[in-house]
Each structure stands twice: as structure tokens, then as C-alpha cells.
């Protein structure tokens, strides 16, 4: 977490301080409202002055987010927020830079910037609002829409297999990967807390209901029995309430993990979650438990490891060079190499 607020007296802010004067313009009932409320509610905890926080988005419904935050913000162009944020974050390590993006924005047109930000470990907090649809352009399928989706551009069913955003991020060397749900304020807030603490790129997929074009896509994960809550150091188990069978996750002998009834294997056989494992293989295996969230689906932090942060390395390299070579001297540089005088 970026610390302090540049020497200004620390005033305790409230959620209201993070509301801008702009009218919020999502469709009534949209999941974006809940996420906005959670973020605004969490912000005071950050302990960073508003002027040192920046929200950068691309284009889409989700991407209107910055307008509603009383911080610095940029509603940029489709898919490019990670690139723009990279320039800002790496040249201004004193800022807390957040990227808000949609499944189309981040994974379709912006896919390349996203994976490169993740591998570089740029110090960005990336919130991907996944509603499995293009909301703003009125309902075309997205790279996370399930195979066979029928909608405006796929009247006979979509043909392309969707991304699993968590798998993709892990394949792209992400250091922090998590998943949450729009309406689960407590869970989302806990994840935001960890996102803020993480040094480097923190990537969160947030299931978000688009009640106009894709209503109910995440209803399954709103049910207790489908929520595999990942908790570091704890055995991975879920269900068991209200008469449902308690289930858990075990390592498959040939690789990967699978869901079993806890009773059938015994508690001790359950896999203990390790978000800090250097090797992302476990996190990846967990991400494969559900490809689209229609059954049991892991939520929480898949991976959270430390790796040098791009922005910090960049600043250090400058510092070290200046220390070793001295502050650059323009006059000297202009005169470097072979020169001759004419009088």
C-alpha cells in the first residue's frame, strides 16, 4: 500500500468524500452500483489523500466508474486503460492508480495491454467487472460469454470458447489474482483491502450482473453451496449448510485438483490453500474448477506473491545511475565525443 499522504494532515475521510458531483448513470439494478458503493466505502481505509488516488478506465458501462469518484480520473479509450495507467504509475510512484475495466475492454480489445501489465508487475489495482456481455454497445457477446450464447451478434449461438480470466492472468505471470462478486460487499471489501496492500499488479475479476442484457449470469455463485471460498492456509471446503453435502478440494494424483465429498475422503485429505506459493500451478488448477460460474466456483485470492515492482525498479535504476554517474549534465552531454573548435 502506498503510504502517507504527502505530509498533509490526515483527515479521516468517509465514503461520502469519495462521491463526485456527477449523477450516476447506470441502468437501475445494475451490479455496477454495488461495486461503486463497495469501493467508495473502502477508500477511506486506504489512508491516502484523495488527490493522490487516480482511477483510469477504458470504454464501456463499467468504464464510467471514474466519473463517480471524487479523485483524479480518466475515462480513456477502449481497452487502453492499462497502457495509460502504466505510464502514469511508472512515472509517478507516489500515486495510487486503479484501473476499472469490463470484460470486453480488458479481455477483448485490451487483452494485450492487460497481459503485459501483469507480467511487468506494474503497480496497478485492476478491477475487471465481468458481466459476460458488452453492456454499453447493447448486448453483443464478449470473450467471457459461455460457448453457445445467443445474443445480438450470435443469433445462432456463439462459436468461441470463452476465456477464464483467472487462468489467463495466471498464465500471464500475474502476482496477485482474485475473484469476487458485485453484491457480496463484505467479501469484495476484504479483497479490495488485500488489493491495496499488494505491491505490483493486483488483478480482481468481479462478477457483475448486467440486468439488462445478461441478467442472472452469476446467480449460481450467489448461492452458498457454490461458493468455494479460498482462504490462505485453510483446507478448501464448502457447502455443508442446510442439509447440502459438504464438499472439498483435493489434489488429483495425475495433476490438477478436483471436488469431492468431504465425507468420502476425510478432512485430512483436503488441500490447504496456499496463495503465496511461488509456483502458480496450484492457483491455476483451482481456476479450472469452474470455467463459467454455473457450478461450484472459487472466490477469493488465488495467488498473492511478491515480485519486484516495475515502477520501483524503474525508479531505482534511475537513482542508482544518478548515484553512480552523477546527475546528468546537459552541457557535458552536448559536448561528449569528438568535438572541435572553430574560432
Amino acid at each position, binding site marked *: 500500500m502506498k503510504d502517507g499522504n504527502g505530509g498533509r494532515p490526515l483527515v479521516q475521510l468517509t465514503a461520502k468524500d469519495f462521491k*463526485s458531483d456527477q449523477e450516476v448513470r447506470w441502468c437501475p439494478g445494475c451490479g455496477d452500483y454495488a461495486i461503486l458503493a463497495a469501493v467508495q466505502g473502502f477508500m477511506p481505509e486506504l489512508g491516502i489523500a484523495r488527490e493522490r488516488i487516480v482511477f*483510469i478506465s477504458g470504454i464501456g458501462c463499467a468504464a464510467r466508474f471514474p466519473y463517480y469518484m471524487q479523485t483524479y480520473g480518466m*475515462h480513456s479509450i477502449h481497452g487502453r486503460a492499462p497502457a495509460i495507467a502504466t*505510464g502514469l504509475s*511508472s512515472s509517478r510512484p507516489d500515486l495510487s492508480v486503479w484501473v476499472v475495466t469490463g470484460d470486453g475492454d480488458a479481455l477483448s480489445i485490451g487483452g494485450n495491454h492487460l497481459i*503485459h501489465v501483469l507480467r511487468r508487475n506494474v503497480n496497478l489495482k485492476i478491477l475487471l467487472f465481468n458481466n459476460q456481455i458488452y453492456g454499453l454497445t447493447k448486448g453483443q457477446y464478449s470473450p467471457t460469454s459461455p460457448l453457445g450464447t445467443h445474443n445480438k451478434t450470435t443469433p445462432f449461438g456463439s462459436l468461441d470458447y470463452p476465456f477464464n480470466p483467472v487462468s489467463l492472468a495466471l498464465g500471464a505471470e500475474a502476482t496477485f489474482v482474485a475473484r469476487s462478486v458485485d453484491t457480496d460487499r463484505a467479501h469484495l471489501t476484504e479483497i479490495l483491502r488485500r488489493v491495496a496492500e499488494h505491491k505490483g499488479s493486483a488483478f480482481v475479476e468481479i462478477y457483475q450482473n448486467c440486468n439488462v442484457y445478461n441478467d442472472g449470469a452469476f446467480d449460481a455463485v450467489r448461492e452458498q453451496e457454490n461458493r468455494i471460498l479460498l482462504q490462505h492456509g485453510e483446507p478448501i471446503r464448502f457447502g455443508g449448510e442446510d442439509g447440502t453435502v459438504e464438499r472439498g478440494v483435493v489434489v488429483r494424483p495425475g495433476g490438477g485438483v478436483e471436488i469431492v465429498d468431504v465425507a468420502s475422503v476425510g478432512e485430512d485429505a483436503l488441500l490447504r490453500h496456499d496463495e503465496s506459493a511461488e509456483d502458480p500451478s496450484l492457483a491455476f488448477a483451482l481456476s479450472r474448477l469452474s470455467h463459467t460460474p454455473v457450478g461450484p466456483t472459487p472466490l477469493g485470492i488465488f495467488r498473492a506473491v511478491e515480485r519486484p515492482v516495475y515502477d520501483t525498479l524503474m525508479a531505482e535504476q534511475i537513482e542508482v545511475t544518478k548515484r553512480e554517474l552523477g546527475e546528468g549534465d546537459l552541457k557535458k552531454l552536448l559536448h561528449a565525443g569528438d568535438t572541435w*573548435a572553430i574560432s
Partner: protein
Amino acid sequence: MLYLRDRDMAAPPKPVEKVDGVVIRFAGDSGDGMQLAGARFTSETAMMGNDLSTLPDFPAEIRAPAGSLPGVSGFQIHFSDHDILTPGDEPNVLVAMNPAALRTNLRDLPRSGTLIVNRDAFTDRNLEKARYTANPLEDGSLDDYHVHEVPLTSLTLEALKDVEVTKREAERSKNMFALGLMSWLYHRPTEGTISYLEKKFQSRPPIAEANVLAFKAGWAYGETSEDFRVTYEIAPAKLPPGTYRNIRGNQALSLGLLAASVKSGLPLFLGAYPITPASEILEDLSRRKDFGVRTFQAEDEIAAVGAALGASFGGALGVCTSSGPGVVLKMETIGLAVTLELPLLIIDVQRAGPSTGMPTKPEQADLLLAMWGRNAESPVPVIAASTPGGCFDAAIEAARIALKYRTPVFLLSDAYLANGSEPWLIPDVDFLPDISTRFADAESHEGDFLPYRRDAETLARPWAIPGTPGLEHRIGGLEKADGTGNVSYDPDNHDHMVRLRAQKVAGIAADIPELAVDEQGDEELLVLSWGGTYGPVQAGVRRVRNDGGKVAHAHLGYLNPFPRNTGDVLRRFEKILVPEMNLGQLSKLVRAEFLVDAVGYNRVRGLPFRSSELAEAMKGML
């Protein structure tokens, strides 16, 4: 070491002929080290105080097989006792290290020109690779030239027989033999080269020794061989006093960006994706961490410009460097910068196109792209560098405009300027323009902060960077309401904003120098040029004048907006000739804006203009 003299090599005993200028071209295989030989000869020449201009000619893209036609690498230098403008239309002397070099370069050598060939390289195999069916050294086809056949390879091997290097290493020193010979022929000083070689190969003393010896052997060969009967002397040129260095356009551009950073007090952030012929700027600046420069090698050109814009938002001097195929990819983001009204430099080192085209070759055909390559009305100032050294000033000027007017600015260079070199009078850092700018802060405005309230004079909006307390605001690519910057779909506001953005750019005309005309006052013909053709066009003008023709010359460094007197200047002449390395892009602009019947001289050959062809074109209009 026997027949090599040492210190006083500068006084050869053979007759000396005085000439006012010479054009030499070194040509050989990519592996033959022609660029190094050329660069050293250039340094020696600079130290002599001649004026000079150089142009390397790299093979396209990748290392072709040794000895093949596409593998030929060339370096041309023009030097003289007076000020010159171009690397020369055609060489007086061609040094050809192998048959392929001879074949690809001979067409440029005028009859009766001097030809120095490495006879050893004219083997059957090499001749075949160069697609010669007969040996040109034997079939009489070179009879019209002054040919010096020098067994360069074997002489080099002979000279190095006592040095502890492999045969291959010894052979690779033959470029230094050739350089030594040419240095002798033209009375170049040798200390610089010798100490250069010693430093360069510091860690491998035998290689250093081999190179130095080969160099000296070449010199000695000139002195002793019957083949060379005279040497040439070129007096120093009378250049303005000051300290000089030789500089290529890309180097000057990098230095200009650094100077802009220092003079604006803003950290430099360069977002770039490698592309010929612009990569070098990224490479140069990536070494300048001592100046606090952040270079970001992005995943593509879109990310490069995006990151530069993000850095600008944060208060840096955001720059991106590219060439045509990369520049087209940046346009959407530049359009965003137009709406955001943030400073941003886009540097286009133009190359021949369309599409991938001929990546190593110059062209000036991205002018209209810079002007109009964005969706909708999206005006951007455009300036162009005119000479290699001028790239330095152009970079500072582009930064000045971007910072003062909060706008993306296009700076056009090209592959000719980028790689060509000339002596550069090093400017006094203290006299460089102060381009510092002021960020908005709580004190700089009354009442509510309005991110789109404009400066009355420049029409620039405030630049309030994150971290500034109280000025939190949101910007974006949707149309902005004047003043508040809120999203607006109001029809009249949109029309107003479209015009405001255009006016802001047009208004820069008041802040740039008038168009200067090089004229006597009685010319009917004006030659109007822009960008990298300055040298050849001015040289062409001098040729015409030498032949008694009357021609005026004006050169545009500002393409958008034009200098405020441009219309007046154009209307003063009966005829206007616009030479361009495109199909007539500036012509279109001035015809549309001033309704003058500008006539184009257009050649799109991926080569700089020759002053002779331009002179012909001018004469054709007299």
C-alpha cells in the same frame, strides 16, 4: 612495422593538388565494416575543420549472405572548404570492397570518377554472387573510370602477419587499411583514429594492434605505391566560430528531447516500440537514466503512446517515437489527447511506404497522415526538422508548443535526417529557450476549479496533475462541456468545442517565426520546400544561381499552422515549385489554403533528392 612511418604522416612527399570539395563513398559487404570506416573518416574530416555531410546506406533489414547484392552497405561523405548542404549527389571517389559493392554503386559514379577496388575480392564466387558473368576488372567495362586496383585483403594480411590474431580477424581489418589509404590521399589527421581503435579494442589488445597496423599500412601503401601519384588537400571551411561536433539526426533529436526536459523542468517519459529508423532514439535515451529519463519499451505502439499520455497526465514530458507503420496505430490515442488537451510529442521518423514499404529508406509522405489521420476534427500542430542538427531545435520547439498549448504535437523527421550527419555548432545550454510551464494549483484559479477554463491568450486549459490537493477532476474522450469539462451532448457546445480546438492550434501561428525567404527581390519563381529536403533544395537553388538563374527559396519548418505570412509570401511569386519526396502533400495543403497554383516536383524513390535534379526542375520553370 618497417616501412611504416609514425608521427609525421601528415606530410607525404607526393605532389599535392588543392580541391574545394570531394564526395567519397565507401561500399562493401555488411561484414566489411564500411560504417566504421566512414564514421572514422568523418571524424578525421571534422577535426580538419572542413564542412561535411554524410549519409550511410544500410542494407535492407537483415544481414544478407556475405558478398550478395542485398548485403551491400555504403557510407558517403561530402566535405569541403565551404559550407555545404548535402552528402553529395554522386561520389567523386568510390571505394568498392567487393564485386557486389561495385555493381550496386557503380551507376552513381560519374564517368572519369575515381574507383578504388579491392582486387582480392574479385573471385569467381564473389563475381557470381554479384551476378557478374565476366570480371569487370578485366572486361574493359571500367575503362572510363580512374581505377585503382588494390589487393586490399592480401596487403592487410601481409601487414598483420606478426600479430597474434586469426586469419579471419586479420582480414576483418581491411576496412582500416582502406581508411588509412584514403586518409593519406586526403591528408586526414590520424591520431583520432588510432586512439579510437585503441580504446574500442581495449579489452582485446591484439585486435587493437591489428586495426592500428592495418590503418597505418594503408597510409604507407599510398605513400609508396606507384598507383597513387598525387594527394589532395581541402582547406578548412569558414564556419561560424564555436565548438562543433559531428551529429546525426537521431542523436540530435535525442539530445533535443533531453534539453527540452531540462529546460522545462519536467521529467522525460519516452514510450516507444522499436521500429526502423526510429529505434535509435529509444536506444539513446534508455542510456540517459542520469537525466531521470524513463524509457518504456512497450508491447506495441498503442501502448507506447498510451503510456506517454498517462505520464503527461501525471506531469511528465510524454513523448513517443516511431515511424509510419507504427504512427498509424497511435492515432486513436492521439485523438484522445486532443480531447484531453494534454501535452504529448509524437515523433515520426518517416520511411518509405505504403505499408512496410522500404524500412531503411527515407520519404516525406506522412504529412497528411499527421494532419488528418484521426477520426473527426482533431487538429494537431505539425512541425518538421530540416537538417540533422536541426532535429535538436525541432525537438525543443515541439516540446515548447506542446507544453504551452497543452496539445499533442507531431514532429516529422525522416530516415535521411536520422542517419545523415553534419558538423553541429554545439549550442550554449544557457541560451536555450526556457520552456518551463506551470501546473494548476489551489492558488492558480478563483472559485471552483474548472479544468476546461482556458487561458485567454493561448486558449490552453489548466494542467492540474494528480497529487494536487483540491483539484481532483475527471477527464475523458467524450465531448466536454466548455469550462467544466463535464460530458456534454449539447449541440452548440460541440460546435463551439470543435472550433475552439481548431482555433487553439491555428493561434499558434502568432507564436512562431514568419516564413523567411532567401531571395534577391526580383525572382518570379519561388521554391517552397519543407522538412528533410532543405539541404538538397538549397543546394539546387545555389546551382541555379551559379548558372545565372533567378530563384527564391522558402523552407517550411512549421506545417500546421503555417507561419502567418505564408499566404503573403506565396502570392508574391508568379510560380511556385514544391519539391517533395511524395506525390504532392504540401502542394495540396498550400493549394487548398491559399489557392495558389503550386506545382510539385515529386520523386518517391526512397532516396534523398539530388541537387542537380532539383536545379533542372527549377530551370524548367524559369
